[in-house]
């Protein structure tokens, strides 16, 4: 796509370790995310999946007692050397496991980030809001009540609102942290179709508890266990008998985890 070699590195994670106080959450993780790929990240609770995402957009800055060593580079730039962390976060869409509708109208939820970035023009905002709500498969359900509170939507709708919000700055990277935890299967499928579309314009990290979701969507999948990266490879390898690590095979097969 647009002349980018398929293996261009969008995010380079090198020797990344994170601890919260005494507890080690990530242990010496080295991992690349390629441009325009969907990287699936699977693993049981406390594997360090969410922590990894928090390192990418530096939400680790606001977690008390959190210590980060190692580097995360986006387009070759060390994220911890970026002076304006808000500029970094605007380039990275983040979707949390539980839907967080801000206590604003549906319209204002999606227009929030552009407005905070200084966009005032009503037509531009209108266009952004509609585009994002369409992309997150929510537009048809809310187009007649854009001034209703976002927090009054159902859980599944709120999660799609959250995704629309994450897309509002046209981010280069989209991080999804178990987005389907509060969404029904039908909506999940619709969002998965959306993600396949979005991959053309952005790089997606998909943290998921559903092994099958990673299998369906991701180009490559990484398995994390207890803060360590066990294996990362093309899906054709991860979901086969040819895995490098026996634990990957048994986790994917549902034999433990």
């Amino acid at each position, binding site marked *: 796509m647009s002349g980018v070699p398929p293996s261009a590195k969008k995010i380079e994670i090198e020797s990344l370790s994170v601890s919260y106080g005494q507890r080690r959450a990530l242990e010496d993780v080295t991992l690349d995310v390629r441009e325009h790929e969907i990287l699936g990240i699977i693993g049981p609770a406390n594997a360090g999946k969410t922590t990894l995402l928090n390192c990418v957009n530096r939400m680790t800055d606001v977690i008390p007692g959190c210590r980060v060593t190692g580097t995360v580079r986006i387009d070759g730039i060390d994220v911890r050397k970026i002076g304006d962390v808000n500029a970094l976060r605007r380039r990275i869409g983040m979707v949390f496991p539980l839907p967080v509708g801000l206590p604003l109208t549906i319209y204002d939820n999606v227009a929030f*980030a552009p407005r905070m970035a200084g966009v005032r023009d009503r037509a531009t905002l209108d266009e952004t809001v509609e585009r994002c709500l369409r992309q997150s498969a929510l537009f048809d359900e809310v187009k007649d009540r854009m001034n209703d509170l976002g927090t009054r939507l159902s859980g599944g709708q709120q999660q799609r609102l959250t995704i629309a919000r994450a897309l509002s700055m046209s981010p280069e990277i989209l991080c999804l942290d178990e987005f389907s935890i509060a969404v029904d299967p039908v909506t999940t499928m619709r969002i998965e179709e959306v993600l396949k579309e979005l991959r053309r314009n952005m790089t997606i990290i998909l943290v998921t508890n559903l092994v099958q979701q990673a299998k369906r969507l991701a180009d490559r999948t990484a398995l994390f266990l207890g803060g360590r990266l066990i294996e990362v490879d093309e899906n054709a390898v991860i979901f086969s008998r040819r895995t490098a690590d026996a634990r990957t095979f048994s986790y994917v097969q549902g034999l433990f985890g």
Partner: protein
Amino acid sequence: MSSGRFRASAHTLAAERRQRVAKGVLAVATALLVLPLLGILGLLVVNGWPALTWEFLFTDPAAGMTAGGIYPAIVGTLWLIGVSLMISAPIGVMAAIYLSEYAGDNWLTRGIHLAIVNLAGVPSIVHALFGVGAFVLFLDLGTSVLSASLTLAVMTLPVIIASTREALASVPLAFRHACWALGASRWQTIRHIVLPNSISGILTGVILQVSRAAGETAPIMFTGAAFYLPFLPASVRDQCMALSMHLFTLSTQVPNVPPAFPYATALVLLAIVVAFNLFSIILRSYLRAHRKW
């Protein structure tokens, strides 16, 4: 046979009995709490009501306080509430926002927190002494509405900070995280998400705390409240009368006061405090009904 499986065992019967005893004891404690309140109210109404006329509310004291009314004291108390509110509300609210939304958890902020908690525990007479030393003498503001209001403000600041932080904490952390992840700055998050959803709670707390301070006598006695003044304060540099001070005067300092006067004065003071409380309660229930999440 049919009821056998659901028959209570001796153990559950005993648990049931103990539960009734515990509930009874707790209910009695609650009743004991309400009794003094009703007692105070009853005493004030029965003894003070006869003296409570329009004339009593809207005329100056006369004939060595044995006649006339309490108008200057009512006005003075409202002055003190208003001016101390204007001082303590902005400072307290801004400090609370800083402490809750910006300051990290380190030895300095823990020290500040400890200082605030201790300040809240300082007896009002000690605040009065501080007020005399700092405002009346050192800053040379004299005994004035300003000195008295500053003293009241210092006294109410810690509780205002505490209630404001509580209101800020009622806005879920997840909202802040969502905003930060979208690239909004801390101030943008506070300005657009946190404050709009906590401002009513903040105001409620502020009003409640300041109206409570209105009943204090010690802090204003030496800093700005007068025994008797033939005029109303025209500026914050004037002295004023105050209901709490006037009540103290009527009860202990002046002979031949009609017995209903102190009770009626207390009733008016109570009514002002209750009015502020009521306003807060209405504000709070309005806020609950218009919650956005």
